[in-house]
């Protein structure tokens, strides 16, 4: 099977590989370049766990061939932090408990980053619409929305993840 040469930039670094035309971009990133932060969660382009940026646009990398990315600038979750300094979205997801198992999280953060690039102060509806191509099974999206609100400076300071004051109900007999 003949291969094609692809040369691209990933998180600022020049990378290249010889790949079959059918080789998916997500496999290039994960299996060839070892950037396993981008995940695969489905086979019908629904779940968004594989979302990365290609030339500044968010893209489902499972639905793109590596050869289509020849010459492109790719950004993955591994390229979001600046050394030890987390990207505001990464920090916000942590602060707001916007992740549980973490599997959808890289794709979610990449999509949120693109969203905020397009729309720096989205409304709650715009946030939900913006991540409607990213499925999460763990969080119910509530804290993901809050994380994106925090990262876009729209969460009031001091407000962290929802903590309802719990009360002990006196009637309960303790033994």
């Amino acid at each position, binding site marked *: 099977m003949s291969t094609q040469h692809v040369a691209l930039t990933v998180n600022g670094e020049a990378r290249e590989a010889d790949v079959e035309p059918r080789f998916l971009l997500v496999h290039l990133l994960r299996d060839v370049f070892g950037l396993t932060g981008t*995940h695969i969660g489905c086979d019908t382009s629904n*779940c968004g766990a594989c979302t990365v940026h290609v030339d500044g646009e968010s893209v489902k990398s499972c639905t793109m061939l590596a050869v289509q990315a020849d010459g492109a600038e790719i950004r993955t979750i591994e390229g979001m932090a600046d050394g030890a300094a987390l990207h505001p979205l990464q920090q916000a997801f942590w602060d707001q*408990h916007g992740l549980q*198992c973490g*599997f959808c999280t890289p794709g979610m953060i990449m999509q949120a980053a693109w969203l905020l690039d397009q729309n720096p102060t989205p409304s709650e509806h715009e946030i939900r619409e913006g991540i409607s191509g990213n499925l*999460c099974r763990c969080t119910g*999206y509530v804290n993901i929305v809050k994380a994106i609100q925090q990262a876009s400076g729209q969460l009031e300071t001091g407000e962290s993840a929802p903590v309802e004051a*719990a009360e002990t109900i006196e009637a309960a007999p303790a033994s």
Partner: protein
Amino acid sequence: MTTEQLQTTPEVGGMGHSVKRKEDPRFIRGKGEYIDDLVLPGMLWLDIVRSPYAHAKIKGIDSSEALKVPGVAAVVTGKDLEGYKLHWMPTLAGDMQMVLPTDTVMYQSQEVAAVIATSRYAAADGVAAVLVDYEPLPVVVDPFKALEEGAPVLRPDRAADKQTNHIWHWESGDKAKADAALASAEVTIAEDIYIPRIHVASIETCGCVADWDPVREQLTLHMTSQAPHAIRTVLALVAAGAGLPISEQNIRVKTHDIGGGFGGKVPVYPGYVLAVAASFLIGKPVKWIEDRSENLQADSFARDYHIHAELGATNEGKITGLKVKTIADHGYTDAAADPSKFPAGLFNVITGSYDFPNAFVEVDGVYTNKPPGGVAYRCSFRVTEAVHAIERMVDILAHEIGKDPAQLRMENFIQPEQFPYKTPTGWEYDSGNYPAALQKAMEIIGYDDLRREQAEKRERGELMGIGISSFTEIVGAGPSHTFDILGLKMFDSCEIRVHPTGKVLARIGVQTQGQGHETTFAQIIAEELGFPVQDIKIEYGDTDTAPYGLGTYASRSTPVAGAATAMASRKIKDKARKLAAHLLEASEDDLEWTNGKFSVKGSPDRSKTIQEIAFAAYTNHPQGMEAGLEAVDYYDPPNLTFPFGSYICVVDIDKGTGQVSVRRFVAVDDCGNIINPMIVDGQIHGGLTMGLAPALYESITYDENGTNLAGTFMDYLLPTALETPAWEVAKTVTPSPHHPIGAKGVGESATVGAPPAIANAVVDALWHLGVRNIDIPITPQKVWRILREKGVTA
């Protein structure tokens, strides 16, 4: 506990603090280690040929073309495994399942052959090149038809006196008393309720890397497993049965980060066994990762209960009795991960939150040509099914007699002073305050205003509904006198070791898949011993090092392993007290413990911090005492725990399209003492979403040929952020009296409680049109058809 009752500082981070999760740094950077991230030298890939037919004879398997595909190393069929007696193996329910068939396939997408190749892509090409000659057989998809005379016997491998599709019969309660109560009831409600198959569909699918080292004769199985120790023991038994030289001390099951489990990563799927067999035969690591279609079409499903329920009550709505008969569709084999005495799980908790003395529950398991199961998909062993049924029945009763559903519940609740409460099916509920939870939910949502609004809207022909679900959950399996899985008792464990510099390593027998154990279990230790959470490392999932446990599912981690963690901490504290007495030259009775240190009563300056004590354990222990500071506890819970809650849902129905829109949803949960409020809320948000999904969107259905009609995410509809409401959550706190830290577990409460709240809301909106019940998922077309039949137009 309230903020006023926090016993530790935020820096220590004990119970009640919303400590930010310790596991997050790797996930937010994309540095989680999931199974498909693992690459071992020389690793091969395994992919699986699957049957397009739900029931068929295999006339022949031709691997010749597949073996010519560059990179394909081997093709394994059932006949190959038969030589090792590996073609069938036990299920966790004590039934038998095929690893690969030798002559007959039993469900669409069943594994038929395995291809092992040098790359992911070559393995896929190999699969596409394997030619299988099938002879289709009559398909049985209806469990009622499966029980009829003359139905094809799907499991001829069973004993001669079990040549039927009936798997087992299970009953609970007192039939005579229940019959009498129903017969004499002033009001009887009878209803058929079907809860369809659904699928856990965690975003990460299942997979493993099996690594047999032929030199050391050791098997390392890296695996997505919610119960690694149980898997190790099962593998050891299967290997022994097959005469393979793989014994338990040489098996290491190692989990990595798991991208969601929800019960789906408990069973032993053929893919895992095939990878182990392939690695053993070839002597190289073998990776198996299923894709989403395989996951949805072949892995264990949840639910699929056909329930017939009868509820008896007085004219005023006081419940007097309950009878339930259920047909449980298990697919072609009972692969349910239920405790062995409970083939229908804890379904007999179906008497719910209500005080009445007469109940009888019977369940019959049935084989059909569908994938096997069912798992505890965030349902605590069939509790979702039970709660859905009782909450629907109670709502129908209320509407039937014209009483407000909240009022009816209040009048029937087990009252706080009645706890511990023995139900007619034998459970002893530990504690609860159901009226307080419902009252709180009603206040938050503005229940009376909503009923007024509903009345006004109804005058104008607008359809709005309010639904309540007041559920009692039953988790923390379980006491050894009653609970085991394949004979393994359901204790759980924690082993704690304190290092000289006052840092802690603790290993637990449960397995997080996103629940935040690295944080919450550290918080338990922080609470007990005063070490800051940041100084405590929690490990799990490596069967070589973690103490034996039965894993995480059915919300058992906090109730069982959490208790073990507290008890192990207290053993350490006992020794610490002795060390402190030695260091302070005082008697143990003269010491008091506050804020992470022991001090002499009346002389607070004479104190030793837990860190100083830890150091002393290695440098200055008294003669006659063993050095070191560690403890292990295997906790056998005295009872289950019973989280509960009241949920209220408001829906609006679009008369033109039948679409149901959830306007508001208030969830008041009580899981006893709360370790980390932020994490508990996260569990509830996620659980509610997994309750919304089957209520309105998700179901797995089959046509008459046994073809799965929802086999990809195009048709198996997970809610996105747009479908999911902004959940409103609140708490009451009723500690468990028997649990060392008063906690109850919460992971599945919301998935259990939410669907009936939504279903009740929709039926409430339509009751005045003569609607009594709508089975979930409540799709727009179902509602539209009802509206059309009732003559309602947009």
